[in-house]
């Protein structure tokens, strides 16, 4: 008879308890059927070209985004010094969003990011092509790692975080637009519009990496941080994503889509399905006290069906069981 190690035994017990907790919460927190279903756009975009400007403008119109007179912050995913990898959100998509929000009357549109590993943020942005693509980029950009901060108390946190110091640029925004790169992630399966909010934690307080998030529970922190801004929108860069050992060491994956919507959980569930990942198996899309949009009928899709544009992203063996049937 095969012996069970103490690690396997404890892992089994812990896993069993966690699953019990998840299933209990999921049963309690079903989406209210009387509420309107969230809209999520799935728009084909074969490459990073000038058509992105029209695409993003159309997305904002489709979603009736009201930014007139508002302070809007675009939050791309900016990670490494390389414009030729698929690590960073492409600067052309960010510029298209900047122009689109200006065109609908936003009073102020800023771009802001706090990279998790590298401290020289502006040099990183320059190497990633942001200075060449976004006119007057340095004037528009806030390095969230060294921004002025205020204390913020999380109400009923899902993670071990309670009070956090957050950048005033984020806390003072009327609308924060998460602009992630569609990537696999070696700790949580996929990094999308919710996980992108890790970049709002200021490195000057929490360091590089922001290791307190790992110790406080990564999936739980994803839920907590993505719920902080009052109003959010997401525009995910899935034109070229990253598969395999993401979010840094994976390989580029042509996917040819932009996914957008107001409800981050719905956008991420849609992105997951497009990547061939079952959103029901992505831990942070199962948070208690948050609505779940993991079943396709829970979302009103605009544009392409996720089934039609589905492009299975390669998964590392640790996450092979996330594959969507």
């Amino acid at each position, binding site marked *: 008879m095969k012996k069970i*190690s*103490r*690690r396997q035994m*404890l*892992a089994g017990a812990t896993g069993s308890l966690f699953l019990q907790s998840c299933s209990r919460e999921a049963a309690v927190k079903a989406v209210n059927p009387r509420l309107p279903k969230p809209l999520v756009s799935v728009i084909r975009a074969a490459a990073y070209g000038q058509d992105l400007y029209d695409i993003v403008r159309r997305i904002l119109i489709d979603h009736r985004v009201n930014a007139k007179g508002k302070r809007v912050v675009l939050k791309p995913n900016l990670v490494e*010094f390389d414009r030729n990898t698929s690590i960073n959100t492409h600067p052309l998509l960010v510029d298209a969003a900047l122009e689109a929000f200006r065109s609908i009357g936003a009073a102020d549109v800023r771009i802001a990011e706090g990279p998790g*590993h*590298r*401290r*020289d943020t*502006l*040099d*990183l942005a320059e*190497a990633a092509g942001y200075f060449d693509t976004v006119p007057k980029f340095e004037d528009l950009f806030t*390095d969230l790692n*060294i921004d*002025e*901060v205020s*204390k913020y108390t999380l109400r009923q946190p899902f993670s071990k975080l309670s009070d956090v*110091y957050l950048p005033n640029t984020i806390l003072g925004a009327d609308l924060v637009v998460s602009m992630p790169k569609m990537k696999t992630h*070696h700790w949580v399966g996929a990094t999308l519009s919710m996980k992108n909010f890790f970049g709002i934690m200021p490195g*000057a*307080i*929490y*360091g*590089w*990496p922001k*290791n*307190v998030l*790992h*110790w406080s529970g990564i999936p739980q922190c994803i839920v907590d941080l993505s719920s902080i801004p009052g109003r959010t929108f997401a525009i995910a860069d899935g034109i070229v994503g990253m598969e395999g*050992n993401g979010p*840094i*060491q994976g390989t580029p994956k042509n996917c040819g889509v932009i996914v957008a919507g107001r409800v981050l959980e719905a956008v991420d569930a849609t992105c997951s399905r497009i990547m061939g990942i079952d959103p029901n198996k992505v831990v942070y899309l199962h948070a208690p006290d948050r609505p779940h949009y993991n079943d396709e009928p829970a979302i009103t899709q605009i544009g392409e069906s996720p089934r039609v544009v589905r492009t299975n992203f390669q998964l*590392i063996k*640790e996450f092979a069981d996330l594959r969507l049937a």
Partner: protein
Amino acid sequence: MIDSLGAHQSPDGGWPYRPGGSSWTEPTIFALLAGYAQGDDTGRVRALEWLRRLQRPDGGWSPKPGVDESTWVTALAALIPPAGLGEGPHSRAIRWLLDLTPANATLCARFQAWINGAATAEPHAGWPWLPGTAAWATPTAIAVLALDRQNRRRPDPALHSRIQSARDFLLTHRCPDGGWNHGSAKALGIDAVSYPETTGTVLLAVAGLDPNAIGRSIQCAETWWNNCPSSAAASWLMLGLRAVGRAKPGPPAAFQPRTIPDAALQVIASAGDRGLEVFAA
């Protein structure tokens, strides 16, 4: 571009990260260290007073006024000569550093890792950015430099032992290319690559070790020097390479400092041996 450090000192005596911001601990200390490297004491008294006011009852420093936790910036404060910071504040900073164990190197963490059969426990004690988290390359390197300076002033077996453990931490977290990134040499078994800025910082902290132990790190730093992506990276590489006898003539003109700490660091790195003495006297 930041052209003059003195012009950006705040009325309260500290320095901001970016011109016009409020005072933070890190840029204030780097600006102070730049003054020591240049032999320029303009604004020093006010800056030291600001810094002393910010020391917390536990002996550490928070990143800025209003933040209620001591962090890695305490190691930076401990780099300031005791004659400037004050013997009392300096010795309490050293004590805070000695008392801080990374969360994955505590006895409890090691026991948990043993129970789980996980390789997450850390046998060597570096320093975290923030108490309650794991050790990483940069805070460990800065703390090693601070404690090493103190140990040269007043040799102490406790200091010596902790410095040795931290240097072992740095060597075991070296990337396969010989340099250092944030402190993770592998991710899920796949080799990670180094960063130039961290490679320079850590090289400075391990410069006194057997040349055979750090030979490939020196080579890695030289390689990065020829492919430098930022002002901060160039400054740290200049300091690290000078510490191992490979001084560079000056920072590359292509990169301008974008923050106050970067500008201060460039001043320190450009000050030759006086700059090196700020970290490794």
